[in-house]
């Protein structure tokens, strides 16, 4: 109905007292700090490194940082998708491994072209996702436990077929395949180009398409999504398969760079990817996983390790810093959110 009293303008008519104004200010500062606190820290680190290590701002070093973290970025983007759907994927390491491993086998033992090998690798990764999706959708196991199971199974398979984790080298790799890692497109390293393309695809998917909206709805409140007629199971299958296929790509890039496959090497990306996703989510107004946030999270991790490296500091410090930053960002973000959530959901 249209009552003659306009409701929203009431807030403006309030004459704020001095103490109210002050508390409004401190609140706003708190809001800004909690939302952008991480960005501020990020730049503080960058400036610090720039001052302490001359090489840091060198263009080639910056390209180095990007190139060195392309693989992590791809993995973190996939993780963003999974976390947005309300799950987690502990088996991305397996999909990374399988991608590289199967691509090498396809070329070495079956003489396939580099393009077919690429496809085989991606399919091998997707198969990991199919297993996850089956466990989650069919058997209704929680994503955490389902992907943990997949992780153990996948690790074991690798150990069995590589006699306990022996490397699978392939020195005679074709140049085309190798250029997935070492080549350049219009002067930009291929890895960066691939990561950028994946980034754009994920951005469109997650932030601009109707499917992204639905995936977010499933992650935030599944029963509502279901009652609204969204095919929840279908979307979950898609999410896990697509994420695994994506990370397989990063495994392929890794093997292309090293000309060999090292079993169980994908695992090292898991925790960084999760950290990057949640650092990114802490910057979102509703603390949602998002593509831009994940990108910043990955860059941050990259900058910190690069900077420490250049300054000749103990590289192991990086993990401690990462932990502190992650906990700090989340604490700030959720302190703020808890205030609000508690206020309404009692």
């Amino acid at each position, binding site marked *: *109905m*249209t*009552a*003659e*009293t306009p*409701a*929203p303008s*009431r*807030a403006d*008519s*309030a004459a704020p007292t001095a103490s*109210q104004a002050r508390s409004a200010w401190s609140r706003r500062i708190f809001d800004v700090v909690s939302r952008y606190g991480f960005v501020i820290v990020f730049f503080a680190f960058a400036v610090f490194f720039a001052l302490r290590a001359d090489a840091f701002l060198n263009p080639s070093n910056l390209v180095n940082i990007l190139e060195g973290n392309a693989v992590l970025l791809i993995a973190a983007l996939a993780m963003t998708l999974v976390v947005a759907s309300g799950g987690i994927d502990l088996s991305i390491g397996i999909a990374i491994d399988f991608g590289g491993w199967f691509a090498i086998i396809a070329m070495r033992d079956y003489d396939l072209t580099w393009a077919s090998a690429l496809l085989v690798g991606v399919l091998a990764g997707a198969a990991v996702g199919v297993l996850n999706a089956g466990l989650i959708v069919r058997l209704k196991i929680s994503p955490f436990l389902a992907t943990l199971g997949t992780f153990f199974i996948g690790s074991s398979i690798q150990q069995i077929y590589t006699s306990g984790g022996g490397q699978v080298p392939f020195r005679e790799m074709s140049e085309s395949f190798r250029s997935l890692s070492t080549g350049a497109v219009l002067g930009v390293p291929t890895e960066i180009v691939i990561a950028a393309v994946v980034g754009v695809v994920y951005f*469109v998917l997650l932030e*601009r*398409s*109707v*499917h*992204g*909206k*639905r995936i*977010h*709805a499933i992650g*935030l*409140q599944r*029963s*509502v*999504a*279901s*009652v*609204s*007629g*969204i*095919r*929840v199971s*279908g979307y979950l299958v898609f999410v896990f398969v697509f994420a695994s296929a994506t990370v397989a790509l990063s495994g392929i890039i890794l093997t292309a760079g090293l000309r060999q496959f090292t079993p169980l090497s994908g695992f090292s990306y898991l925790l960084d990817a999760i950290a990057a996703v949640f650092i990114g989510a802490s910057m979102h107004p*509703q603390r*949602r996983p998002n593509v831009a946030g994940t990108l910043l999270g990955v860059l941050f991790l990259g900058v910190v390790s690069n900077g420490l490296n250049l300054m000749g500091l103990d590289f192991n410090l990086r993990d401690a810093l990462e932990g502190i930053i992650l906990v700090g960002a989340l604490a700030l973000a959720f302190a703020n959110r808890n205030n609000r*959530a*508690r*206020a*309404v*959901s*009692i």
Partner: protein
Amino acid sequence: MNATGEQHDADCALRMEGVTKTFPGVRALDGASLSVGRGEVHGLVGENGAGKSTIIKILAGVYHADAGSVSVDGEPLERIDPASVHRLGVRFIHQEISLVPHFSVAESVFLGQEQTGRLGTAKRAMRERAETFLAETLGVELDGRALVRDLSVAERKLVQIARALIDGRAKLVVFDEPTAVLAAAEVKTLFTAIDTLRRAGKSMLYVSHYLNEIHQICDRVTVFRNGADVGVVDLRQPQQPQVRVPEIIRLMVGRDIGDLYPQRRRSERTRDALEVAGLDDGHRLRGVSLTVGAGEVVGLTGIIGSGRAELVDSLYGLRKIRAGKITVDGEPARTNSPARAVRSGLALVPRDRRNDGLVLDMTVADNVNLATLEEVSTLGWLNRAAAGRRGEELMERLDVRPRGSHAVSRLLSGGNQQKVVLGRWLASQASVYVLDDPTVGVDVGARSEIYRLIADLAQAGAGVLMCSNDPAELLGMCDRILVMVRGRIIADIAAADTDHEHLTALATGGAEAA
């Protein structure tokens, strides 16, 4: 004491004065005052978003007021926190049900006030007391070991009420829309319980959008509008509801709203939009058959355990069925999942809006568009401008406040959230609308708007199955009314041939179908 409510502090169980509360962008309370006399049942009414729940949460210590004073039993309170008001004997039945899904009924009732025996908590004693209390005071037979997540919303509400009252130390009990999810018979039991409390000298504050209830049980009622009190009406003087209720409504919305129910042109029934034959889930439903004609509004009512909730769930694929056939628009519908149900032309407005209705952390526009995203997109690319526009449009039509489709749904008042859920389906083109308590917690003005929208849907040829506990609404809106008792439809009557008492009697098994 006079009619305007001037009282001395000492006579007041509760006195709140000049309370102001501002949330970012919204002034929820703007100098509101409220006083509840000792031993009085005091009503509090106002439109959605008027600030009723906010003032209650300030009293509960959930929010802190920016300004204003609060005194309980003549004693001014400085800083309010939940523990201290609890100690003063103030108990709350908040609008939102907050129970732990995995706790049992007994655990939930005694949460935070566990009884202890020699060996830790006295589980058995607590269970028995919870069961007895629920049965004797609130008239519902519940197993103390049943899990909250398996209860219906109405049963959860009763558990929530039991939790507030079980220790018997309450002095002032605050009810925020307690009957929204209850059926007529359960409301009656609740009112008996309230009467018992009143006779024991307890004071009560009672928020509701059902003005008849207010008229029936309250001694006085305070009316809120836009965050401030605009009047107190004394209901103890003998006056007909026909005079009192419109007076309250005028205070609430600042004008007359005319007829609550729209005049509907009843057309000849041509075909069935929904046909259900022999629906059986092997548990609560025992061969339910019904039809809803295109252009028809059919009511469905039934108390807890009647199978009404299960019927709705089965229609919508939220519950497995053993036998039976569902036909939508002449086509057999495969409704083994909600997604399938939607594709075969059904739309559901669920009764539990906080869990099934709204993605609380999404914006209003996102929630409105959730079921029909294809319509605001091209090839999967979301047209955000179009989505926002449609959000605004529906908010305008339903008068959701505050406006602005980018508001996060969690921050809307209860009634406004309900409007958003409804808005989602109004945007779709379903052939059958299953509305499960569509006006729960919605104020009179918006309610008349919702009724008009429902009438429009029927006019446009959709079938509407309107499930409700409010006899007045069923009588005012429906062509036919179905009454469910113990898993069967025991009556299918034209609304013109029945009345309030008859419906209640049918639903409680106290009368034979005509």
